[in-house]
């Protein structure tokens, strides 16, 4: 039997990789993918908890997270598309018009 801590550790590592990806990549698409990565990590820990706690709430939340992730991806990409139409950039360092 694999201990619960292993799953949570794995989930944390993926989550942090997602965070790092979000923090260091210039490309907005990859940043979106990083967010998906973070959400997947959360899902992993939720399913693991759910399994070990013998409770289904965690898995219910996973279903909702997946739903929201899909919605988020759709909106995020739509925003990206509308930005690209106006400015033809997909890099965060090109969208610093407003600052201070």
């Amino acid at each position, binding site marked *: 039997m694999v201990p619960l801590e292993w799953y949570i550790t794995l989930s944390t590592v993926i989550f942090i990789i997602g*965070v790092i990806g*979000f*923090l*260091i990549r*210039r490309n907005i698409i990859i940043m979106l993918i990083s967010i998906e990565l973070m959400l997947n990590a959360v899902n992993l820990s939720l399913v693991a908890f759910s399994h070990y706690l013998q409770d289904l709430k965690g898995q219910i939340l996973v279903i909702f997270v997946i739903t929201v992730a899909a919605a988020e991806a759709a909106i995020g990409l739509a925003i990206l598309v509308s930005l690209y139409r106006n400015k033809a950039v997909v890099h*965060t*360092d090109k*969208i*610093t*018009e*407003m*600052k*201070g």
Partner: protein
Amino acid sequence: MTMEKYVLIPLLPLIGFCINIWFGRFYQEKAHWISILAVLGSFILSVITFIEVLQGKVINYDLYSWVISGNFKVSIGFLIDQLTAIMLIVVTSVSLLVHIYSVGYMHGDSGYYRFFSYLNLFTFSMLMLVTGNNLMQLYFGWEAVGLCSYFLIGYYFRKQSAADAGKKAFIVNRFGDFGFGIGVFMVFIYLETLHYTDIFANIHTLQGQTINILGFEIGLVTLIALLLFCGAIGKSAQLPLHVWLADAMEGPTPVSALIHAATMVTAGVFLVARFNPLFSMSETAMMVVALTGAITSLFAATIALVQNDIKRIIAYSTVSQLGYMFLACGVGAYGAGIFHLFTHAYFKALLFLGAGSVMHAMAGQLDIQKMGGLRKYMPITFWTFMIASVSIAGIPGLAGFFSKDEILWLAYNAGTVGRIVWVIGTIVAGLTAFYSFRIVFLTFFGKFKGTHEEEHHLHESPSSMTVPLMILAVGAISAGWVGIPPLLGGTNMIGHFLEPVLGHPHVHGTHAEEWMVIAISVVVALGGIFTAAVMYLWAPGIPQLLGRTFRSIYTVLWNKYYVDELYDYTIVRPTKWIGSRILVGVTDGKIIEGIVNGVPKLIAEFGERFRKLQTGFLQHYAMGMAFGLFVILSLVLIFVKQ
């Protein structure tokens, strides 16, 4: 129509203000009608109220309570007792006359309606100040009159000196109000109320309590009294915060008469009188009040001796007379102080309005050395000015005599401090007579010293100006008759009237002594007039001779004891120096702006640095969030580990 009547007293001018400020531009030239009607209404209601109070009615009720939370309650309420009734009469009557006078004086000014609306606003604020039944309302009125004063001093805002004078008045008053604010706060902290009646009912509980400040044990009562007196010093232009009043003469003359002579500046005296139960509990505080008053009055009177600007002389005279009132309060003669406030309001307003009339004729000329012989051009102005001068000089029979004599006599009776201030007071009486008549002789007698054109222009002022002068002259003669001492066959009506609020000091001197005090003051006053007559009528060479002989004294007095310069070097310049050295940005020459803008500039400098963090770069924001998460995590974990 019971309580509404009292509410209307301050409310009418407020309504007038609102109407004029919003709609004034549509009927520019007729704006005075609304203002005057409003103040007239207040005056009539004040008289009715006064009569009611005379019959023994005292009103104290809360109109509206602004409960915010817990026991912190701020009310709009009215306390109309004998003291308030007198103040109401003073404020509304002088205000009414000044309003009427302004119709002529301000005629043709571009901001005519604005001027009248400010005057109304001021009247409202002042009435709120005197009618309030709690400290918060007093404080509100206090700040509001200050604000109006600031607006009105800087009324000719295109003139740099006027704008500066307004700022100066505002800033100097900040110092006093800072202390006052702390005083109000302490009253609330220790007594948990701001209502006068509750304060006075519970004030004895503070007796004997002390508070430790920097290792000194200071009596709580003394501290609170002195903090409140701080406010009074600022507002009533006493030493060392007197510097703003002379500069405040940059404002239009009616403003000087109303705000800087008759009403606002006496708010300090009103405050001390209102809090007489508090002040009477602390000998130290009383002594400070008395000595501050006495020294200020001597100090200002000596400055007034040598000045040439007609309004500034009268301004210093006001400072001096206010000192007199504080002197009276300081020796426990609150009634006499208020009596003097009452008479002073009329003769001083008359002096200012007379000066305004002279300026009107002289096309704005202020230097009395350039006037002369105006007697025959403007007889009404001359006679009324003369009456005011006689009154302020303390010649028996006129208003000034009775109130001044009452103060001197009660001071004489009030122990060692009393004797000291009596001596000072008597000297000041002589000086007052001298400088008052110096104006009269230089302005109205002798030959005209101005240019030919100016002489051609001389004329008596219009009736809207002369009628108020005549009415005020009646006041300057007769206002004192309400307080004729028993020794001269009167009953000291005003003293008895105010006794329920202000008490009456115990008098143990004999009739002979009282005669002596009266005689000395009269002789000194006549001496002052005589000296003035000698120096400015019969032997005009003497002043110059004296000026040359006592050059140093003359220069010191001419420069007002260098107080302005002292402040400039000790406060203003160091602030400016620090401002220009420490703050990286450019500080322009304005000292006051240095203080006002310095701190924000420093913060802004800080902000400019911080601002660079907000790069507009998305990842930096995300890193900020991650960093925040990291810091919180590390702090909490370190904390929990222990």
